[in-house]
């Protein structure tokens, strides 16, 4: 089965072509094509996952590292030459470019990490496809929406299947393009217009770093293929600052795509896109690709402590930073957006502190519950036509399914036993606890508390209490079944997907997806602290927004500048606008001015001088004296059409220049030629 894995990505690609070129001929704008294609992909992905799991578990049964590796390890027990085991890998590649003896290959591979991600992406994408039928119903660019969604899914799946950085980068950027197109879906409005551009450029900054990192890796290891790079780094071919530079540069790509500080600014704005897009791209899959990148590049990262520290601290800081903004955001999608940033920071932090499995596991569970939350918010927005939580309230009476699934998502995100988030968050905190980064462990606990708090706040404001906007409330209604069914399915996954890495299943997931052998001892202290933080968060949140135990106006006044700073998202956007963007545009304006008024002026003045020389003192009064006087003034003003004045049209001036040149030639020849 695994040799056909490329079909998983290829089928959505075909569906993109079909929808893009023929979609408008179909009754429903071609949405069914996409759904059918993704269903096939999901089935294939499930088969691939099952097969990979079977192979992996057989290997596990034979020996801790699989038969081949076990044999290799036996030969050279202390050798650095073997990369840590990542489970059974199936790889097929062909030559893409051949330059002399340099062979650049491309192909696909399936290993446990890929297999689980394939399953997750095709599942979430299918849910979003189905959900969008209801949410996007009647949209002017319905077909375009589905076409781009298909292309995005194809790119994301290709990214997961890629066995080398080139294919990875290609699909990475195509995803960026789709994200750009989907954020700008309603391009008539200024918001999406600006947001789409901001998203593309911001991520591109990170991408350039990533590209450079990949190029450095290429020069250091001589290959773009993951397995060759892993072999080369493990053999100790690269070391020291070079390795760190490679890792940090590659990490820049993740910073951009996964919206880590300081390149996080695009993700909240990306909420200008349709909500299903936010669910799929800006919560579950594309933004997680940054985390996937780090996981994929772990053979580079795990050898360099400095780079891992950078990863860990950036992740930790982002988690805390974004969570703090989420506590006061007023727009329901913005709350979820900042929550996404925060959770991505969590995952990045996990990878940084050495919790490979933990990071990937959280990536997986987060995809389920965050897409659930976004789709839930989409359902609410669909009903109310507003995103402002202060205009909501009391919706639990009218939207039962949405409410309950949303609450499940919230509990999962907050990390309450036994929902999915509990298990994955626990793993991350455990990894941090066992690592040298003790500070980050406490940051994690704090973030867990804040997460529970702001989600409780969102749920309370949206679904409970009294309706604050009665007009909107009157028109609210439960969404149609093609929107609620995906919610229910995702809720099931948000509830139970955590169990794959629980004692119930014998930590099956950790045995399946791992990087080398890493098994931290479970710690009741960690679990207890995390759960306590989550419960406390929920309690505080409900106390403030549900029971109204404190006067919020007074609290705001007491918080003062802190409140203002948080409300304004720590002024990051404003700071960027005032410094980077402004300097950038000013520099551009300067270069344009320079080009027109300095370089072109030189050109024109040279032409003008040539004209003066050609004429010598021809018509002394009119041209030279006047010309010199004007030349100083007019030359500075604007060179403009000065050059044309070489062409006086006076026949004799030309002839004079001609003969003068001949004489000059004679003299030069006589002097030099002797």
């Amino acid at each position, binding site marked *: 089965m695994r040799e056909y894995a490329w079909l998983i990505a290829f089928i959505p690609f075909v569906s993109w072509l079909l929808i893009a070129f023929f979609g408008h001929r179909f009754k429903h704008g071609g949405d069914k094509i996409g759904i059918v294609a993704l269903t096939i992909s999901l089935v294939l992905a499930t088969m691939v996952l099952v097969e990979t799991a079977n192979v992996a578990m057989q290997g596990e049964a034979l020996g801790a590292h699989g038969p081949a590796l076990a044999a290799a390890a036996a030969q050279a027990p202390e050798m650095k030459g073997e990369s840590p085991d990542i489970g059974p890998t199936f790889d097929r590649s062909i*030559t*893409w*470019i*051949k*330059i*002399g003896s*340099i062979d650049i290959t491309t192909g696909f591979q399936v290993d446990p990490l890929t297999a689980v991600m394939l399953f997750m992406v095709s599942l979430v994408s299918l849910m979003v496809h189905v959900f969008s039928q209801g949410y996007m119903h009647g949209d002017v660019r319905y077909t375009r929406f589905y076409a781009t969604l298909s292309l995005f899914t194809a790119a994301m799946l290709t990214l997961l299947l890629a066995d080398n950085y*080139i294919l990875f*980068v*290609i*699909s*990475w*950027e*195509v995803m960026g*393009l789709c994200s*750009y197109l989907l954020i*700008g879906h309603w*391009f*008539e409005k*200024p918001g999406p*217009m*600006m947001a*789409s*551009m901001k998203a*593309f*450029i911001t991520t*591109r*900054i990170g991408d*350039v770093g990533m*590209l*450079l990192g990949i*190029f*450095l890796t*290429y*020069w250091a290891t001589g290959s773009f293929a993951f397995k060759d790079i892993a072999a080369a780094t493990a053999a100790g071919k690269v070391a020291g600052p070079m390795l760190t530079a490679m890792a940090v540069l590659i990490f820049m790509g993740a910073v951009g795509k996964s919206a880590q500080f300081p390149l996080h600014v695009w993700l909240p704005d990306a909420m200008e896109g349709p909500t299903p897009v936010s669910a799929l791209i800006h919560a579950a899959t594309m933004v997680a690709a940054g985390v996937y990148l780090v996981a994929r590049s772990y053979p580079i990262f795990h050898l360099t402590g400095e780079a891992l520290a950078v990863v860990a601290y950036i992740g930790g800081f982002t988690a805390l930073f974004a969570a703090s903004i989420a506590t006061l955001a007023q727009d329901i999608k913005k709350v979820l957006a900042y929550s996404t940033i925060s959770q991505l920071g969590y995952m990045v932090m996990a990878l940084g502190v050495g919790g490979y499995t933990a990071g990937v596991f959280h990536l997986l569970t987060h995809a389920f519950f965050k897409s659930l939350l976004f789709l839930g918010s989409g359902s609410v927005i669909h009903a109310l036509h507003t995103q402002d939580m202060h205009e909501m309230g009391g919706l639990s009476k009218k939207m039962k399914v949405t409410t309950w699934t949303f609450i499940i998502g919230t509990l999962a995100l907050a990390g309450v036993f036994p929902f999915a988030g509990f298990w994955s968050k626990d793993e991350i905190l455990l990894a941090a606890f066992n690592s040298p980064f003790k500070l980050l462990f406490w940051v994690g606990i704090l973030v867990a508390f804040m997460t529970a708090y702001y989600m409780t706040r969102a749920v309370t404001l949206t679904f409970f209490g009294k309706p604050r906007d009665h007009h909107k409330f009157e028109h609210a209604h439960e969404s149609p079944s093609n929107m609620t069914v995906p919610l229910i399915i995702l809720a099931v996954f948000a509830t139970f997907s955590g169990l794959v890495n629980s004692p119930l299943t014998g930590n099956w997931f950790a045995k399946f997806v791992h990087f080398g052998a890493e098994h931290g001892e479970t710690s009741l202290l960690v679990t207890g602290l995390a759960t306590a933080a989550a419960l406390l968060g929920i309690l505080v949140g409900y106390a403030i927004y549900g029971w109204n135990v404190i006067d919020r106006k007074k609290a705001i006044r007491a918080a003062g500048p802190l409140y203002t700073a948080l409300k304004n998202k720590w002024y990051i956007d404003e700071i960027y606008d005032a410094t980077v963007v402004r300097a*950038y*545009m000013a*520099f*551009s*304006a300067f*270069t*344009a*001015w320079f*080009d027109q008024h300095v*370089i*072109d002026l*030189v*050109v024109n003045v040279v*032409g003008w001088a040539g004209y003066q020389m050609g004429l010598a003192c021809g018509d002394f009064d009119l041209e030279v004296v006047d010309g010199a006087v004007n030349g100083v003034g007019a030359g500075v003003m604007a060179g403009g*059409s000065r*050059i*044309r004045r*070489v*062409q006086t049209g006076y026949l004799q001036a030309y002839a004079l220049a001609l003969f003068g040149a001949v004489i000059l030639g004679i003299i030069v020849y006589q002097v030099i030629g002797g």
Partner: protein
Amino acid sequence: MLSSLIFIPLAAALVIALFVPRDKVNVIKAISVTATVIPLVVVGLIWSKWDYATQAMQFVEQHSWIPSVGVEYFLGTDGISFSMLILTAIMSVLACIASFGIKHREKEFFALYLVLVTGMYGVFTALDFILFYIFWELVLVPMYFLIGIWGGPRREYAALKFFIYTLVGSVVMLVGILALYFQSGLGTFNMLDLTKAAYPLRFAWWAFLALYLGFAVKVPVFPFHTWLPDAHVEAPTPISVILAAVLLKMGTYGFLRVSMPILPEAMKTWAPFFATVGLINIVYGAFVALSQKDLKKLVAYSSISHMGFVMLGFAAATPQAITGAVYQMFSHGLISGMLFLLVGVVYDRTHTREIARLRGFYITMPVWATIMAFASFASLGLPGLSGFVAEFLVLVGSLNVYRTITIIAALGIVVVASFYLLMMRRILMGEPMEEWKKLPDASPREMVTLIPLILLIALFGILPSTLINIINPSVLSVVAKLGGS
């Protein structure tokens, strides 16, 4: 084979000029299209017989011409020039079709256009310096008239600037060529033989400078670039297309065919300079483009930026970098040609190129706008399209040689992205303006010129080896001369 590439358009030009009455416009157009399609077919035939293994010149034609000074009629093509021939063949047909929009003095236009095509084929096939120089100048003259007669409001200024600039450049180049001729003492203008002579380094440095000035003006390399925006803005659409797609490549082709193989030692001393000006082109061009208010100027400056990658690739002189540079020449030909075609489409309808006056074209002209977005993304180096392969190879190849410069150049990509996105935001997005609401979308004739380019850009982005296998042997021989690995 190769002679037919040169003489068919030339013969057609003569036929149009001498035998076809000026009011038979359709006949003129039919002849022109035929005379550009036949070379395309010939190029296809050559491709089918192409020997991928050899580094030597293929399809050589060598006849004595002026034996007393050693001038020959010597044509031949290798991977580098053949890729340019493919580009010329494609773009000359498309630009010819695009020229159907020309509405006055068609006879002169098409005759001159075919002479221009002759010159382009000649430059890319000539292996004798004098022949090369003749074709080089032959391109210049029709270009002057094509800009000067059919151009925009400031056409005369632009045409003159273009003419004087490139003329001065090529005269200096001629000095360099003659210097090589006399210094080598071989009594031949044969480019291949001249590579075998040894030149003292001091002489080589100066000869290189002379050639550099000639080629750099054509590329154009900072600070000799200011003719380009003017010429582009004023030229009629098909001529802008040819100018951007093929003419700029003549300069870089000159470096690759003349400067680098004949004066490899001098090239080594010049390489850091190349890298620096390449970097300036990339970053400076992009920043200037960001502030342009005229759509065509923006595209022109983006050309300057992209040609910087070619220079950077030459400087690094690794197989990847030079392959990437040649690939960039090819890919930029397709992409910038396409962008100018697109700008021409909207200019024909609105008679303005001012970015501020255009808005909401996703809604008014959806097909055009989508293709415009495609071309912009291709130009900003979206992976999966041909521009990416080129930039990718150049950057990979250069990183280990000029580390700082390459890193800054890579940041230039962000600037390129930003000005294209800004342009798309302003022109394509937003509510459409009232005055343009009734505009018709791209016509079938325009689609005929655009669709092949879309397909080619995608093809060469996904399967670069189709072209790289052709380029590769010749690039390796250049690299070997430069002493690289």
